[in-house]
């Protein structure tokens, strides 16, 4: 599904990703953990196509195409979904309008017919049950005045409606209370399938109590320094990241800040 090879990326001339190698197969759930400033969100944004980051070296192959050559909307249409760490408020655009525009843009690019209002509403209402979201939020402006938990649920709802092949969740668990976390996790679990892969970016291992990953990676200083199974996440919870960082010189650590 996704093959990342020697990926380097910078922002404002500062190198943040320093050679990422990652292979994710269909059906798998991968978790990427790491301390603040390690490059987790940068990786998510580079995969989604944010032009603030410049890829300076390396390749990303997604379902046999060169992902890095595609603008963000084409990635989305091809089935790459990023759940934002900080979902953006868009006054004046209703949530349901965005959902419909997004779904129909995806369907159109796949040569499928656009859904009419009735079919669309039926689909959305069904998917909303996954995230236990109040229907009223559909008719409000996108994320405007939503609580933190509502914003994250809304991201999961968008994911459920768009049914991507590769879902990247950028710290979707941050700032959630345990109820909201369970709802988000249930949404992810419900969408797990043999032809879909997940990349969960998280700061805490808590989410992984509810969404059991196939592989856990530790990202430090822009590189994956260790990979393992779920036990690695539990070990990190106990020991922290300190044991994994000796390779970094004080100079590069300063650079990370």
């Amino acid at each position, binding site marked *: 599904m996704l093959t990342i090879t020697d990926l380097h990326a910078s922002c404002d001339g500062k190198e943040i990703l320093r050679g990422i190698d990652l292979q994710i197969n269909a059906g798998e759930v991968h978790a990427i953990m790491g301390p603040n400033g390690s490059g987790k969100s940068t990786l998510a944004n580079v995969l*989604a*196509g*944010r*032009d603030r980051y410049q890829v300076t070296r390396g390749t990303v192959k997604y379902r046999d195409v060169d992902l890095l050559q595609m*603008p*963000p*909307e084409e*990635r*989305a*249409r091809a089935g790459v*979904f*990023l759940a*934002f760490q900080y*979902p*953006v408020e*868009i*006054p*004046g*655009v209703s949530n349901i309008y*965005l959902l419909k*525009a*997004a779904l129909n*843009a*995806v369907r159109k*690019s796949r040569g499928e017919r656009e859904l009419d209002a009735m079919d669309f509403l039926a689909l959305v209402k069904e998917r909303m049950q996954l995230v236990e979201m109040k229907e009223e939020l559909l008719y409000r*402006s996108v994320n405007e005045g939503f609580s933190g938990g509502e914003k994250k649920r809304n991201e999961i709802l*968008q994911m459920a409606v*768009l049914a991507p092949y590769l879902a990247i969740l950028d710290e979707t668990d941050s700032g959630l209370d345990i109820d909201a976390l369970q709802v988000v996790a249930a949404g992810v679990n419900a969408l797990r399938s043999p032809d879909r892969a997940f990349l969960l970016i998280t700061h805490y291992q808590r989410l992984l109590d509810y969404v059991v990953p196939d592989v856990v990676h530790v990202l430090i200083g822009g590189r994956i320094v260790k990979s393992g199974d779920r036990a690695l996440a539990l070990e990190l919870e106990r020991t922290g990241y300190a044991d994994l960082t000796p390779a970094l010189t004080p100079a590069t650590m300063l650079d990370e800040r």
Partner: protein
Amino acid sequence: MSNPAPDTAARYVQVMHERNDVAREAAWLRTLRESAVARFADLGFPLQQDEDWKYTDVRPIERAAFMPLPLDAATPLIPDAGQFRLDGVSGPRLVFIDGRFSASLSDLGGVPKGATVTTLAYALNSEPQLPAAHLGRYLPDDSHGFIALNTALLSDGAFIRLNAGTRMEQPIHVLYLATASAALLLPRNLIIAERDSQVTIVEHYAAVGDMAYFTNSLTEIFAADNATVEHYRVQEENRTAFHVSGVHMQINRSSRVTTHALDLGGRLVRNDLRAVLADSGGECHFNGLYLATDRQHIDNHTHIDHAQPHCTSREFYRGVLSGRGRTVFRGRIIVRPGAQKSDARQVNDNLLLSRDAEVDSQPQLEIYADDVMCSHGATVGQLDENALFYLRARALSDADARDLLTFAFAREVLDRVRLAPLRARIELRLAAAMRRFAPREVHT
């Protein structure tokens, strides 16, 4: 460019003196005209040295020397006048073609008892005492030449009057259609809402064809105690037209006037919107949207006079600019001595879609009372990069994402438009405008 400007002002004065139809007018009206003629002869066209006209150069209007149409000119047939109707609005309709009333396109049915919906010319002829008490009474002392020009040559427009206690549910659509090239059009509207009355009026300016012409309109609104007036000025002139408008209102005890100033067209546009809150509990709401692209110039001057205590004013103006679009917003609020508990808020937001567009936004608060709440805010910004990326990450194309965000920005003004058929019409116009607004086209 080296040609000297014709002395248009002098020609206008000559036209004023040559009008032979005014002789049979009532004395008060002749006096009103004569003082306006004298005033125009004195003022002429505004100059940019005048602070109020600093950013708006009206010399192109002067150079073009637009002239009033002969009173006996034939009225053209408008085969597609239907496109200017407001679908779903079933109230009375007054249609003026090149400033002259068209009985065949108008529909004055459905006017309830207690309401008068007619032309100003008819009212001046048949019941002159009704307009006499109001016409010209709400114009500012420091009025500029365009106001004097309108009054000096006034001929027709809408006359709307609501008797005390009359509530009119259906909106009144007043449509001014321009068809003639090089014409000077001088619509004059008078709206009188007596005590406890309620009315909705849409002043609508549009054109058939892309000829140059000049609309210089003037509207006076009198809202008596506890009256409610919802007023719209929808400006869809063609893109070579000049449009100068004045809307002047007096708001009395506990009455409320809402004006929506929607400027979508015109090449050079200047609007003066003024309210005097003349007694306590009065309220005015100014809601504005302007779109300026290519070389359009749109200047909105608002002026709210809190003359008495316990009055409320709200201004919410938004502008979208692209190409070499240029807009001016100057919002003046005066709180007079003793006008305690005045509550005034003013917001002007501008969205710039191109580097060559230019905005001047100036709040001007003059507060002479000490127990008041007054606030103002002006913003000039571009589309939010985070929001753009968010929409593109949800599969919308860059162009669609830009259009959607631009539309959403403008829509916050339209959400305040209560008249649904009108809102739908403007939304369609907006959506059509988005395509030409997109920066990718602007820079080619």
